């Protein structure tokens, strides 16, 4: 027996979004290291340069490999009784929560996600360990999903606390 992947992929735009987000993260690190290399005159210039090179290499690999991999993994599905999501890339996690246990449904758009027209949807249950989040949906899908989930959750009561 195994878990089949959830039915729907997230938006294709999410690949570019993840790539840009990772790039920004690595740029911050690289710039910090560059400044350290240029400003600190401690005679360890070679060591600094090596560290910078390593960071650039790891960062480049991450930026190239991660987004497509993530896109292949990230999926979601809303069944009549349950919500099912899968996320991650190296470390993958599938989560299943019954619709009847849903407490809140949030839709969130960060500044960068807005540029790409994307939104995240997070479904929480009464457990602090079980929020399901779907990252990188296009805005229309996100809105529809939030609507569907809220309506479905309202039809049931009780949160098993």
């Amino acid at each position, binding site marked *: *027996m*195994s878990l089949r992947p959830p039915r729907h992929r997230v938006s294709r735009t999410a690949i570019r979004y993840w790539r840009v987000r990772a790039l920004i993260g690595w740029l911050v690190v690289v710039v910090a290291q560059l400044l350290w290399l240029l400003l600190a005159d401690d005679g360890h210039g070679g060591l600094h340069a090596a560290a910078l090179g390593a960071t650039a290499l790891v960062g480049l690999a991450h930026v190239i490999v991660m987004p497509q991999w993530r896109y292949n993994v990230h999926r979601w599905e809303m*069944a009549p009784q349950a919500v099912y999501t899968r996320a991650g890339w190296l470390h993958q996690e599938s*989560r*299943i929560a019954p619709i009847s246990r849903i407490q809140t449904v949030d839709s969130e758009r960060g500044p960068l996600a807005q540029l790409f027209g994307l939104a995240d949807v997070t479904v929480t249950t*009464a457990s*602090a360990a*079980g929020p399901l989040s779907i990252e990188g949906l296009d805005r229309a899908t996100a809105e529809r999903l939030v609507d569907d989930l809220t309506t479905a959750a309202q039809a049931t009561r009780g949160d*098993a*606390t």
Partner: protein
Amino acid sequence: MTEADAGAWRRLDRRMLLIHPVQELPRAVPALLAAFVAGSGSGRGALWSAAALVITMLFAFSRWFTTRYRLTDDRVEVGTGLFQRRVRAVSRDRIRTVDVTARAMHRVLGLVRVDVGTGRSDREGGGAVRLDGLTAAEAAGLREQLLHSREQAPAATAGEPAPAEDPETELARLDPGWVRYTPFTLSGVVSVGVAVGFLANLASEAHFDPERSGPLRHLAHQLDRAPVALTAAALTLLWLVAVVVASTVGYALAFWDFRLTRHRGGTLHVSRGLITTRSVTIEERRLHGAEISEPLLLRMVAGARLIAIATGLRVGLGAERGGSLLVPPAARAEVLRVAGEVIGSSAPMTCPLTEHGPRARRRRHTRALGGWALLAAALAILHWAAGGPAWLLAAALVLLPVAAALAADRYRSLGHAIADTRLVVRSGSLVRRRCVVSAEGIIGWNVERSFFQRRAGLATLTATTAAGQQHYDVQDVELGEALRVAEELVPGLARPFLEVRASPEGRMQETRPPGTP
């Protein structure tokens, strides 16, 4: 309190006017010191600090004047604040636990502090209601009304004594013999450490030199002349005695007069404490299971503790502080018996567990040894390349077998089972925990697979719940077994998402058009 005055705003007991200033004083010490220092420049230090003291006192008194509470048919409301009024309302059907604490000063005055826990109080204090300063009788009445009045017939008025039959049955009570388990808990070691640290700090603050103190110097000279082995033995003995004494005193303080009872109204009740008394009432409907926790030392002497898995009880560091402790360190057999009675079934506590197999065992070893090996390698490189300290490397190498032993023990602990519609999971070595969670308390499944777990065909199945630690993990179990467990416990939840691996085209067969929720 009777039903007649329900709905009226009430104040805390007047005697809190004595307690509030004492409670407020330690918090105001920095301000008082600042006032004294600032004022001493103008030569009126005493005047300034007196003024600050008066303000502190007024502020403390204001807490009593501004705090009100009331109990309506469907809510408990507490209003606080002088300038910024705040009313916190908790719906009565959300109340899961009532926690009554009385510290020394409260007890002298016959007062208690009441914490009302809701399903969410375990998260950042949200939703919890605290009434600091009711009389013990008021608190008992409040607890009765909040947790027991729902099931009982309204005819039974709170004023009259209950029917002759005792509504409580005792499940466990303190056995003085349990005290022999306390030296094997960390509490004694920690308190001795704290005491020694405190004394050392005090000595250095006071510029106290042990060399200059007559008796200590005498002692030091005695030790100088004695053989090293003897000195070490004496010090170890001294330390052991200190640990035993400290832990015994701690045990007595915390668990004196410990009683675990079941009330007919559907609650469990834990009361304990010598100076600070604590009494926690848990609604049984919200009790989703129990955890038997066996720290390594305690496990060696066949001892264990019992912790409730319930919503509305704070979790995290020190479950004992959070009030979810059901049985203090005691004989394992007794803990198992009580656990069986508490959850109403003894099978989950004693049933054999399914092992997780050789791949899980290998993972335990690679994870425990891999880290150490990397550390040792790094230290070795450091030693030979940069002249790092050799003893660190030696220590890392010596500890390698310890890590291996730990890994072996961690694997031995690992196991899971389904018994009596409850999930049973066990893991851990330094603290081995056997957690039993009822199926109706489980509100979701997470299946986690790291890169290496996927290569080994393993997964970590997490049952999410609103109770206790919020999540209970079946570590490194075969994916198929994980899904079987999930499906058997909560039938139907995961079924739409399962597939039988055998036929590769099975993946395509049952696909409906996308977008059909």
